[in-house]
């Protein structure tokens, strides 16, 4: 057996170029498969991480999934706002323990700006019921105060006391700026691994103030209101984008949801975050499964290539195998030799694939976080990924049986009696 292994390695080394390339293709396909599985898992985890302790998300009537996407994950834009009176009516409802108003639409260097109240710092929960913590400074108190998410301050290099200007809409910098009304950074939040990190927080009053002279949809000359006069205006918000609601009793959530959905003065929608997330995965699930199936097919292609290479090598190894047979190797030894070769390449490919994936996630994690808000932790393989790897190796084994069997069949007579 040991001799056989030695011979197998030497023989493989002799064909290192073709086998090496096959190894690369298997490794890459495994990386792709695991990568797709991991991104899918991480996306789910980071979405589920983003909201906790909230019983209902309330917004204008739209799809529940879309409401969740824009209100909680800051993806996409709101279809409509809800009136401030509706917010007040719900906030003062006897079943409601707390509410957080959310006003979205502006941005700062591509980071979303959120207008909210001090309830945000008090009641907002993420992960396993963790509250927000300030890494530095304090929550906003004055109209032109801003509190930055950890990533905003890190990415743009802001410190307490810096002045920033916000951009109207979600466009890039240098577009319609609220340059006449700069904000002061008064607080920076600790990292959370949620969309909060990518958000600039200001008060609802500030949101109202920067849009005072935008009544016609664009700043019109002669209508601009300098920052120092803004406080003379009534800064009570007229509208907000959405609100988070916490109830006194979580079991009352269905009653409250019905109350919200039947609310006569305005068309509102209340969704349970957990249910909306499931609906989101139902929609995304189709694409996810397609992606996973495609990457599984890529692995099959890689392993087919492997089988083809070993099969093709049989032609040039006829003499080699014949000599092995003539010095006493049994047909079963020949079978083992070729199957082991295929299996070794598959296992090696899987291992290299895992290493490659770990390297890639470590390298690309900052990019994924800043561009997609997706937090990918470089972690060791999970149970699901291990099962995937096992199935790859299993299929690899099955695939290697083919050249093994063929060599077994041929080696009985072939090579010793060359036909000329």
């Amino acid at each position, binding site marked *: 057996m040991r001799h056989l292994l030695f011979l197998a390695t030497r023989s493989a080394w002799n064909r290192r170029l073709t086998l090496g390339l096959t190894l690369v293709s298997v490794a890459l396909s495994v990386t792709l498969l695991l990568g797709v599985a991991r991104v899918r898992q991480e996306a789910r985890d980071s979405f*589920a991480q983003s909201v906790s302790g909230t019983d209902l998300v309330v917004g204008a009537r739209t799809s529940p999934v879309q409401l969740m996407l824009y209100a909680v994950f800051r993806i996409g834009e709101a279809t409509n706002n809800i009136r401030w009176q509706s917010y007040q009516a719900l906030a003062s409802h006897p079943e409601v323990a707390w509410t957080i108003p959310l006003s979205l639409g502006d941005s700062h260097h591509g980071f979303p700006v959120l207008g909210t109240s001090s309830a945000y710092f008090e009641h907002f929960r993420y992960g*396993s019921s963790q509250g927000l913590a300030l890494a530095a400074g304090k929550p906003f108190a004055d109209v032109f105060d801003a509190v930055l998410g950890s990533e905003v301050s890190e990415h743009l290099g802001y410190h307490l006391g810096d002045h920033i200007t916000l951009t109207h809409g979600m466009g890039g910098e240098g577009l319609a700026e609220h340059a006449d009304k700069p904000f002061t950074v008064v607080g920076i939040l600790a990292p959370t691994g949620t969309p909060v990190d990518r958000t600039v927080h200001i008060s609802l009053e500030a949101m109202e103030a920067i849009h005072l002279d935008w009544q016609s949809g664009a700043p019109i000359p002669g209508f601009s209101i300098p920052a120092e006069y803004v406080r003379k205006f009534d800064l009570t918000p007229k509208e907000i984008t959405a609100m988070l609601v916490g109830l006194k009793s979580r079991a*009352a959530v*269905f009653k409250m949801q019905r109350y919200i959905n039947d609310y006569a003065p305005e068309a509102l929608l209340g969704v349970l975050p957990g249910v909306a997330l499931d609906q989101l*995965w139902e929609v995304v699930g189709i694409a996810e499964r397609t992606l996973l199936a495609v990457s*599984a097919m890529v692995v*099959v292609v890689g392993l087919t290539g492997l089988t083809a290479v070993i099969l093709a090598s049989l032609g040039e190894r006829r003499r080699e195998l014949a000599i092995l047979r003539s010095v006493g190797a049994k047909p079963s030894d020949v079978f083992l030799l070729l199957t082991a070769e295929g299996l070794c390449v598959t296992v090696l490919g899987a291992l290299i694939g895992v290493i490659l994936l770990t390297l890639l996630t470590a390298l690309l994690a900052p990019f994924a976080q800043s561009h997609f808000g997706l937090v990918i932790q470089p972690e060791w393989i999970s149970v699901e990924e291990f099962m*995937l790897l096992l199935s790859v190796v299993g*299929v690899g084994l099955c695939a290697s049986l083919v050249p093994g069997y063929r060599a077994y069949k041929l080696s009985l007579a072939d090579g010793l009696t060359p036909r000329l």
Partner: protein
Amino acid sequence: MRQLFLFLLLAGTLAWAGDEIPALDAKSDYKIGDRLAQPASSSPSGYRETGWDDLLPKNWDPMKELRALNLGALADADPRATKVLQKMRELWDSAPVEPSLRGERIRIAGFMVPLERKGHQVTEFLLVPYFGACIHVPPPPANQIIHVLTSKPLKDAQAMNAFWVSGTMDIDHTDSAWGASGYKMKADVVTPYKEKR
């Protein structure tokens, strides 16, 4: 030819294996309004198997105040009918709980509506008696909802999956204008519900 067939078989196996991993998206066989078959009261593990009807107080009669009305005489569009419906809803929303259930160790089957998640695991949910409760049809009365806290997080659970929940019942009082108190449960064991056939 035979080898080609083998390859196709392999390709199929792997595609199937890749498809098998996300067991999360399994579609439910239940239709809106479906109830789970209710068990006979036998106690295999120290938990009393309980049906949803046992959660209603013995002497609670939601129709009591409506008896006086001759419902048969009302047409569908009759404003009085709408009023009666409204009245009924209010009664249901403040439906009383059965006080003797406090501290009882029970086992009950129902559909799960997730409240809190930790990663892809569910740690806190509401258990309701019929499929589609509360999302597609009016919510069940207050005494037909159980707020469950799990001791071990639930893996791979989706909204409206059916579960057996075993645990200790408690009654949660909230001082709200709607005046309802509700069932709360500390679950020891949560297992997927399987229809006995």
